[in-house]
């Protein structure tokens, strides 16, 4: 029990963050619904029809909507349709921490040395996450009920409980998959990368099933099983799908436990040769190790290649679906065509411009958050002290990190843009290539702004940098989503980094881009100051 308590303690930040994120999201969405749905049944029906058009357009991201004239239907689609992915991401971070991160920090060795069996360790960590997830989901359910009260709408408690059970199954399955993957790789960073790709692939497998028939592959996605449950619509739980999610979780937990039992600490389950066998006493000959900016890029080559490959797949997937989605919407009623025009989605090229870049910006933010985490870890793990023990000005460290971030992102964006171009060509979509290239290049301004702000935080308060920069990204996302919904003024809308980027393929917001560059410059200059005045390792 002590071990479970310890495991639960490791989840404190996650529980608080997920509870807060879930609660804020659901309450804001409930209030937003109350504001825009209208009072009369006719208004509600019109609203539902309009939103269903939007829902179909977003069906590769969110479940197909239903009963949008009710708060329950709206929340089921608008919030509970995406919150599963958030819980899955939390599970990924948590499982890789338990499966690798704590091992890297020596905690696992300490526990195992104090007569804790390996199976017991795995069981305790799973139980710790399960309890934490249950707490966060309880908070989400309570917040949903409060949101409904504030919106003066009715949501029954029973369906809310069932919704929580469904999300719990998905979170646990995601945790189990990531925990198993953590046994197969050597580092937490590797586990995060591989686990992220696998979970994202499973998510897109589910998304693909929304616009085509489910395949055998679909049955391997816990996201698909979770989506079969729509309890807020009064449909209850699909017993087979729910059972499948928990079965997934059980199988992968057992596999992870067996793998952990069999492998050596600090090693993956299948271990390659530790070295070429040839003894070396000279420095590495590759000149890239000695060059500014390129050295960190070369050191992260596998990580960057993984991101580039992953984003290329996502780009190809989205662009490949473009024609199907736009054609189906354009062949709909006149209202739908009008909506497409107003949303700037009337052509294939414009559709790619809006949808692809809105996804790319989110994923590049994730990449930037990971880099900020690395900068904080440089400090905590002593690498920064070693770098600064060389005759290197602190300013160079700041500028080199930001330059490496931009260069890494540029490589990722270039590869994924090429994939998007080939997908467009394959689909006979007449892509506005100069506009696409410009939009791809301008997205680096968002990375610059976010990265510079992240570096300032990493230099000023390294321990809170990751949480703070993640909060800025989440804030930017919500603000961009909610500002149009509530009709907030531009000044509020522009407090989102993503809104400042806008939709450059249709119209470049040069003022916004200039602001992003300005934020980047101010952040960088402030970072230089913070880095110069701070104590290393403090």
């Amino acid at each position, binding site marked *: 029990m002590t071990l479970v308590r310890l495991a639960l303690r490791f989840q404190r930040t996650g529980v608080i963050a997920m509870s807060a994120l879930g609660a804020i999201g659901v309450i804001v969405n409930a209030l937003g619904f109350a504001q825009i749905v209208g009072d009369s049944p006719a208004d509600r029906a019109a609203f539902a029809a309009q939103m269903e058009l939007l829902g179909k357009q977003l069906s590769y991201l969110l479940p197909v909507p239903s009963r949008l004239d009710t708060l329950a239907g709206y929340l089921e689609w608008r919030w509970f349709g995406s919150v599963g992915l958030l819980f899955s991401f939390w599970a990924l971070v948590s499982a890789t921490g338990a499966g690798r991160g704590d091992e*890297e920090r020596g905690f696992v060795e300490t526990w195992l040395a104090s007569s804790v069996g390996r199976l017991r360790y795995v069981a305790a960590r799973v139980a710790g996450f399960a309890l934490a997830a249950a707490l966060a989901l309880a908070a989400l359910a309570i917040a949903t009920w409060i949101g409904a009260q504030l919106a003066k709408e009715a949501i029954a408690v029973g369906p809310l409980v069932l919704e929580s059970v469904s999300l719990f199954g998905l979170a646990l399955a995601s945790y189990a998959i990531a925990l198993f993957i953590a046994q197969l790789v*050597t*580092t937490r*960073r590797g586990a995060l990368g591989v686990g992220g790709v696998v979970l994202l692939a499973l998510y897109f497998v589910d998304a693909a099933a929304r616009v085509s028939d489910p395949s055998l592959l679909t049955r391997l996605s816990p996201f698909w099983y979770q989506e079969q449950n729509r309890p807020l619509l009064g449909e209850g739980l699909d017993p087979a799908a729910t059972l499948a999610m928990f079965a997934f979780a059980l199988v992968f937990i057992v596999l992870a436990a067996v793998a952990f039992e069999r492998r050596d600490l*600090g090693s993956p389950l299948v271990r390659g040769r*530790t*070295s*070429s066998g*040839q*003894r*070396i*006493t*000279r*420095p*590495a*000959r*590759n000149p890239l*190790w*000695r*060059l*500014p900016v390129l*050295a960190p890029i070369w*050191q992260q080559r596998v990580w960057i290649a993984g991101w580039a490959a992953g984003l290329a797949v996502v780009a190809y997937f989205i662009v490949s679906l473009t024609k199907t989605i736009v054609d189906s919407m354009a062949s709909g009623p006149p209202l739908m065509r009008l909506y497409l025009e107003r949303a700037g989605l009337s052509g294939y090229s414009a559709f790619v411009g809006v949808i692809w870049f809105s996804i790319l910006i989110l994923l590049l933010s994730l990449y930037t958050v990971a880099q900020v985490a690395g900068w904080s870890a440089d400090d905590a*793990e*002593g*690498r920064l*002290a*070693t*770098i*600064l*023990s*060389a*005759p*290197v*000005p602190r300013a160079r460290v700041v500028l080199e990190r930001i330059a490496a971030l931009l260069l890494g992102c540029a490589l990722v964006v270039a590869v994924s843009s090429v994939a998007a171009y080939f997908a467009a060509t394959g689909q006979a979509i007449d892509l506005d290539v100069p506009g696409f290239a410009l939009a791809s290049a301008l997205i680096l301004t968002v990375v610059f702004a976010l990265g510079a702000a992240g570096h300032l935080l990493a230099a000023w308060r390294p321990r809170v940098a990751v949480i703070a920069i993640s909060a800025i990204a989440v804030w930017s996302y919500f603000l961009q989503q909610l500002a149009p919904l509530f009709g907030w003024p531009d000044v509020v809308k522009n407090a989102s980094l993503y809104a400042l980027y806008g939709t450059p393929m249709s119209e470049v917001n040069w003022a916004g881009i200039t602001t992003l560059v300005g934020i980047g410059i101010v952040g960088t200059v402030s970072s230089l100051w913070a880095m110069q*005045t701070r*104590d*290393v*390792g*403090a």
Partner: protein
Amino acid sequence: MTEAIQTQGLTKDYGSGRGIFALDLTVNEGEVFGFLGPNGAGKTTTIRLLMGMIHPTSGSGRIFGLDVDADAVTVKRRVGYCPGELPQWGGWRGAEVVAYVAGLRGDVTDDEVGRIAERLDLDLARKYREYSHGNKQKLALVLAFMARPKLVILDEPTSGLDPLHQQAFYGLVRDARSGGATVFLSSHVLSEVEHVCDRIAIVRDGKLVTVSTLDQLAGIRAYRIEIDFADGVPAERLRAVPGFELISSNGQRATGMLRGNFEPLMAAVAGHRITGLVSREPSLEEVFLTYYSDSAAPTVGQR
């Protein structure tokens, strides 16, 4: 003789009595200087101040006449550094870590790296995470010595090294000194400084206790005495001996520490039948401990 390191009132105050306070220290060029103290005494804080990693609360430090804080980059062109807490390089190979840091320094030859790695028997082909603690320490030493710096600052450098490689390390230090370099090393292992240091400073609770040569330090040594009496221990007479501290009296054996002259002790036991007497010169370890024990060693009856 010029100063390699000079501090004046160097202070880093972390609050609650933690840190280093008003440190006045001079390390001459070409000497090997030991910086001793127990855990938490302020050794690492001092070294991090000298390396410009942290900023002083007050006072100043100079290396070769340059301010360690304001001229940190210039200072480090002449300094090699081995941190007390080893950095984590994860999946990097040793050769990659060396190449990366050599690239940052720009004044490292591959031959010198090879010479030190051979001497320490370190295989740079292996990944950092596969290294034992001792091998990680060796890599840190390679990074510290590879630029042939004029000053080497080492924070507990032999931690994790086996005796064979400790000897190799001492050899590196002696070679550096014979090449004209200054070595500043912190330690809580006194045998280590006995091997290589010319002078020693002792710090305790963030304050400098003393700076002395090894010979001067030996002058304040105490002797551990064990006397076996045929007729029982004359405890009262022993307690009255000036400079003698009776640690234990177990039946017929008396154990104590003697500082100063032997004559009063010999006179005190002259009328007793003695079946055994052992006088052992204490190691620096024991001398060192006398500096750090707040109260005297337990006396008879306290055990």
